[in-house]
């Protein structure tokens, strides 16, 4: 039974797993039942995936491949090797290079990371943002399915209040009808509505002035 809140007691030190230990656990079958990722030494079980999430991730992948083309790899739900204690699996990562560059090891950075979020909004806005800022990821987007908007995080800064000591200095919201220019290709323009599934359970939102 999971506790409702995280009891963070300063002196108790949870053991922080290294990526090596995490992969060994995978090898011996510890994770057969659940999708997991390694975030700063903690193994986190990911939430189940619902179809709007999958649709959006696929749309994002397609749009990025179209815009970036050769010289870039678009990875969906694949690991990034960020430091010795982190192995997150962002929904989409845009990485410079070719697919074969990552035969031996996962990329250690990305030009753009996108998380599509249905239910874990706070987690992706705060904890994940702090992780990506710490890793120096310049452009981090949260595709917020609930509110049908894209939250763009830029300019990693050190921040004593953030979970891992870093956060993003600039946060901008783009709604349906807006378009966003990725830092890695400022001449390109991505329509917010091209990344969102058709709304399923919520009534269609009106365009407000």
């Amino acid at each position: 039974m999971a506790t409702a809140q995280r009891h963070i007691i300063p002196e108790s030190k949870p053991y922080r797993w290294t990526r090596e230990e995490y992969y060994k656990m995978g090898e011996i079958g510890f994770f057969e039942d659940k999708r997991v990722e390694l975030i700063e030494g903690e193994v986190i079980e990911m939430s189940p995936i619902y179809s709007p999430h999958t649709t959006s991730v696929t749309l994002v992948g397609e749009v990025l491949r179209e815009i970036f083309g050769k010289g870039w790899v678009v990875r969906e739900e694949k690991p990034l090797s960020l430091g010795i204690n982190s192995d997150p699996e962002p929904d989409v990562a845009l990485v410079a290079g070719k697919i074969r560059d990552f035969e031996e090891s996962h990329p250690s950075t990305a030009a753009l990371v996108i998380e599509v979020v249905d239910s874990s909004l706070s987690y992706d806005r705060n904890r994940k943002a702090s992780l990506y800022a710490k890793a120096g990821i310049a452009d981090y987007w949260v595709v917020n399915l609930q509110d049908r908007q894209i939250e763009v995080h830029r300019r990693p800064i050190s921040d004593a209040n953030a979970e891992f000591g870093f956060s993003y200095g600039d946060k901008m919201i783009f709604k349906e009808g807006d378009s966003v220019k990725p830092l890695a290709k400022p001449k390109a323009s991505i329509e917010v509505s091209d990344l969102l599934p058709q709304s399923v359970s919520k009534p269609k939102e009106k365009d407000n002035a």
Partner: protein
Amino acid sequence: MSTPRTQIIAEPKPRRWTRKEYYKMGEMGFFDGDRVELIEGQVFEMSPIYEPHAVGVSLADDILREVFGKGWAIRIQNPLSLGEASDPEPDAAVIKGHNRDFIVKHPTTADLVIEVADSSLLHDRNHKASLYAKAGIMDYWIVNLPERRLEVHRNPVANAEAEFGFDYADKLILKEGESVAPLTKSDVMIDVVDLLPPRYEKSAP
């Protein structure tokens, strides 16, 4: 106006380990030689052993042997098997029987558990107290080094606010000069002063 479906979905949660997985990890050489313990599915690093803590543990050891004697096993910093997901290593534990009894399986309970707390005070009061209460350990003492007192926890009860759903209803604070008898050896008084190391200056880290 969020959809009902999204209200049911939980945020990502930490993976909890079973004791079996924890021992397997130990076998595979994880933990890098660090001293660790398993508390309700989470692995915690234990603090390095500073002198006051070491002396506190040794004093507890001396007193317990004197008080309990034959018919009781005294275990120092060894595991207790509490449920499927906990394997704490309390500083001292007293269990009816003989140390040989635990050759196949670590003790699954204790008549008295003592933790000597220096930097780990909050951890011992919260995580550990809730864990031991949940396991039904009737007598749980914390030797509080910074404040030089003994905190006696008794009467485990369910408590939704506590970390693992249980806590101790009765907490006694005893100072130097006072004494207390263990629940299972009520004819013998232990002086708090005998559990406290000599006063010391904290050495620079």
